[in-house]
Structure formats: structure tokens, C-alpha cells
């Protein structure tokens, strides 16, 4: 140990070990996105080369360039479908946040309510959506909902319901845990100053639940997309309301393999985008205070 290194004197000697550590940390940071990117490029390159070299027919395996071309050529067809899928995904996610979050807050008000309702939430979660969907389709047939600014058709309602069932549970369970995670001494402090139930919720339990809620949201947003796509396969939306899943089914029926790939790529990109957006939002909201969002020196 070198005692001269303690404190930051203007002429502090250069610590080569610390510098090397900083350099390797920077390298790791760059590698964390550069490596997967490189692997992706290599794989795509090989794929392109293999398709050309072995003269694989596009209806068996289209090349990456061919998929990109199809995306461009079929854009008119694919864009409205993408928009439909996104609408169902975000609609279901919004409902999951309202429903899951609201229910969690209700549970937090009384252990009795929580005990009474949790089994039903779990049942809803563990029953495969494929099994429940036909029932939902039957019950919501010809049901429409007029929201004033937009009228939701029965197909939209069926899709939303299915995707919501898939997505809401992580929000509910995480937020419930989060609301109960507040430090018990802080609770004592709130009691000491005669805090009302509402003050305790707003100033203590909701902020304490935020990291948990955001973790649930991250899972739920991925599930909402899965729910939206699966629901569409089951409900079989046609015409104006059809999303990317219908495009895949329709392309499969016509053996239009490049278009199937194009639709799958769009779904993947959507999933990645949703993941990045929720991670980023979570980071922004927590970076000043939560351990999960804080970088440590050691």
C-alpha cells in the first residue's frame, strides 16, 4: 500500500492498477452491445452467403436481403397490421397496469381482500390462454364498447381481453410485494406523526413499490405482445382488424415464406423495442436512488 495515494493531492501519482480497471470496465461496456451485434452480423452474413451459394429457394428459406426487400415491397400491407398489433399490445398493457396496479392497491388496503381474491388471480394466470380464449370469443361475440372517441369492435375486445389476461399478473404480484416492502421503521414513523392511510399510501407505499412495479411492467410488456399475437391466432381476426399474426397465417396458407419472415421480424423488433423502452424508463425513474439502477465502483 502506498500512503501517498490517500486523498487527492494535485500531484497525485498515477495509479496504473486503477487505470487498468477503468479501461477494462469501459471495454466490458462496449463489448456488451458490440459482441451480440457482431455475432448477429456474422450469422446474417453466413445466412446470406449460404442461401446464394447453395441456391436455396426463397419458399424454403429466404435470404436476409430478400426479407428486407419483402419488408419494403409489402410495407403497405404490413404497416396497418403492425399498427393493429401494437394497438392491442399497448391497450392490453395499459389495462394490465390499471387492473394489476389497481388490484394491488386494493389488496394493500386489507389482508382480507387480498386473501379472498388472490386465488382467483392465480387461477386466471395459470390457465393457458389458448384454453380460455374460445370462451372469451363466445361471450364477447357482437359486443361493442363505445368509448366516445372510438368504438371498440367485438374482435378488438376479444383480443384485448386475452392479451390483458396474459399480461396483468406480473404487474399485480410485483406491485403487491412492493407495496408491502416499505421499511417497518418508516411505517412506525408515519404512525408516530399520525399519517392518514392515504398519506401512507402516497408518500411511503407507492414509492417503495415503484421498483417492483417497474420490474413487473417489464415482464408484462413482453407478455402483452405475446398475448396480442397468440390471441390473434386464436380469435382469427380478419379484414381491417387483422394484425401481424393474421399476416403470418395468411402467408403460410399461400406459402409466401418471405412475407412470413418479414412479419416475424417485425414482431421481434417490436418486442426488442418494447424491452428497451421499459428498461430505459425504469432506469430514468430509479437512477437517483435504487440499487438496481446504480453503478458501483467495486
Amino acid at each position: 500500500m502506498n500512503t501517498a495515494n490517500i486523498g487527492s493531492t494535485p500531484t497525485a501519482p498515477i495509479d496504473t492498477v486503477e487505470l487498468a480497471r477503468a479501461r477494462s470496465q469501459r471495454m466490458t461496456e462496449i463489448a456488451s452491445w458490440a459482441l451480440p451485434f457482431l455475432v448477429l452480423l456474422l450469422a446474417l452474413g453466413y445466412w446470406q452467403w449460404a442461401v446464394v451459394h447453395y441456391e436455396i429457394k426463397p419458399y424454403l428459406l429466404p435470404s436476409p436481403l430478400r426479407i428486407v426487400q419483402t419488408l419494403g415491397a409489402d410495407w403497405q400491407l404490413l404497416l396497418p397490421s403492425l399498427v393493429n398489433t401494437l394497438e392491442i399490445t399497448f391497450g392490453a398493457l395499459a389495462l394490465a397496469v390499471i387492473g394489476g396496479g389497481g388490484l394491488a392497491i386494493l389488496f394493500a388496503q386489507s389482508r382480507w381482500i387480498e386473501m379472498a381474491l388472490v386465488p382467483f388471480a392465480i387461477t386466471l394466470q395459470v390457465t393457458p390462454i389458448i384454453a380460455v380464449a374460445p370462451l372469451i370469443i363466445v361471450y364477447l361475440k357482437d359486443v361493442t364498447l363505445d368509448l366516445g372517441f372510438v368504438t371498440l369492435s367485438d374482435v378488438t375486445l376479444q383480443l384485448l381481453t386475452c392479451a390483458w389476461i396474459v399480461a396483468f399478473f406480473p404487474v399485480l404480484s410485483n406491485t403487491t410485494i412492493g407495496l408491502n416492502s416499505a421499511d417497518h421503521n418508516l411505517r412506525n414513523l408515519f404512525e408516530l406523526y399520525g399519517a392518514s392511510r392515504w398519506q401512507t399510501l402516497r408518500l411511503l407505499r407507492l414509492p417503495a413499490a415503484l421498483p417492483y412495479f417497474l420490474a413487473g411492467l417489464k415482464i408484462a410488456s413482453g407478455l402483452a405482445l405475446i398475448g396480442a399475437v397468440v390471441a390473434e391466432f386464436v380469435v382469427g381476426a380478419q379484414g381491417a382488424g387483422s394484425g401481424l399474426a393474421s399476416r403470418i397465417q395468411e402467408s403460410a396458407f399461400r406459402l409466401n415464406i418471405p412475407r412470413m419472415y418479414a412479419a416475424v421480424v417485425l414482431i421481434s423488433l417490436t418486442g426488442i423495442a418494447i424491452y428497451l423502452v421499459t428498461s430505459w424508463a425504469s432506469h430514468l425513474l430509479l437512477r437517483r436512488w435504487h440499487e438496481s439502477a446504480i453503478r458501483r465502483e467495486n
Partner: protein
Amino acid sequence: MKPIISLSDISKTFSNGTIALSRMSMDIGQGEFVSLLGPSGCGKSTVLRIIAGLGEPTTGIIDWPTSTYNAAGKPERDIGFVFQEPTLMPWATVYDNVRLPLRLKRVSQTAGHERIMDALAMVGLSKFATSYPRELSGGMKMRVSIARALVTRPKVLLMDEPFAALDEITRNKLNDDLLRLWQDQHWTVIFVTHSVYESVYLSSRIVVMAARPGRVVTDMAISAGYPRDDVFRTSDAYNEACRNASMALHEAMDVADHL
């Protein structure tokens, strides 16, 4: 003179059968600095919580002779409470953490601002109002916690082993700051500790407690005057008081062992 808090025959039995306190009586006078000294598990925290109104005694009466009582028969406890851990809200700035008691008591931001800045100034953290707890050292977090207890300008300060988790240098510094504030502000302090040295250095009176069941075994005055400083720490009076308190504590533990 009327005591500010009066405990008579306080007992507390928890639902699992633990007798945390047995017939504990003591009067706390206005302006006293009282340490509750005893081994871990002797019921120090339990008494403090009962005084704070965070728990009801099983039997016995706790009276606040100089306070007004509300319609429900509860005294208006004018207290600040400091826990062993800083217990700050990690999502709030230092300023907002200190503001919490005022918010809960529905004091507006404009009316409270001066008090918040005063409290921060008292603990020497005026410059850190916009910091977040994780950006502060352990000692600084404890200071925030103290500022939060002071912001309502209470007459009585209850502290439950507030400095036990800090290193000795920081603890001594905070002890000195606390004594200075206590002298300036004419508070009454009830200070829980398991350190003989800390209790002697700070207190005008030490209440030694024994465990199983928790009760008072010795109630001793520390007659040395204030202000106290490092000179007092090396004085004969200090050593004498430490010896007496240690002996009382050992007796308390022996008594417990023989039960």
C-alpha cells in the same frame, strides 16, 4: 416541579409470552438528559416505543402531566423519534426526508421551509439539501434522521441507540453536537444505549435496566456539569461515573443470570 413524562408500573407482555417489561416506574423531568442503559433484550426499545405511543402497555399508566389530552383521551405528544438506523426514504432528497413530519402534519411547504432549513443547519447539512441518502456517509444519514426528528421543534427527543452503528470518531462528534443542541434548545432527551461510556458522557441521569423481565435496577444522577468535552472524558469524575455505571450494569446482569 411536575415531570414531563410519568411512567407508573408499566408492564408489557407480548402475545408470544415474552415479558418485556415488568412494573417499570420512572418520572422524566423537563430538561433532563436521561440514558436508558442495559443489555440487549432488556426492554429499552419497548419502553421508548410505549412513551412514543407506538405501543400500549399491558398494564400501568403513562401520563404526560404537562400536555393536553385530546377527545379520545390521548396526550398530544410533542416528540421527535430517532431510530438506530437512519430510516430515510431512499427515493426522496435530504430536504424532502426532513420535510416528511411537516407534510404528515399538513404544514404547507412555504410555512415549513424555514423550519426545514433550520433543522438542516442545526445538524450541519445545509449544503446537502438536494442530495439523495445514498450519496451520504453513515454519519451524515444519521444527521438527516436527527434533523427530521427536530423539524417539528419537539420538546422531547426519543433516541433508540442512534449512534450504535457508527464508528467511534463519528459517534463522538455526533455526541458533542447533540449535547450542544440539547443545551441550546432546552430539550428533554431520552437516549437508549448499551454503551456505559456514551451514557456517562451525555447524560444528566442514567437509568440502568435488567432483562428477563425488563425493569429498572439503578437510577443514578451524573452530577458533572455541562458543557462536557474531551477534558471531561479524561477526568476523574468521568472515570468514577463510568465505574459506578459499569458496576450497576454488571449487577443487573448477574441478577438476571441468577433468576
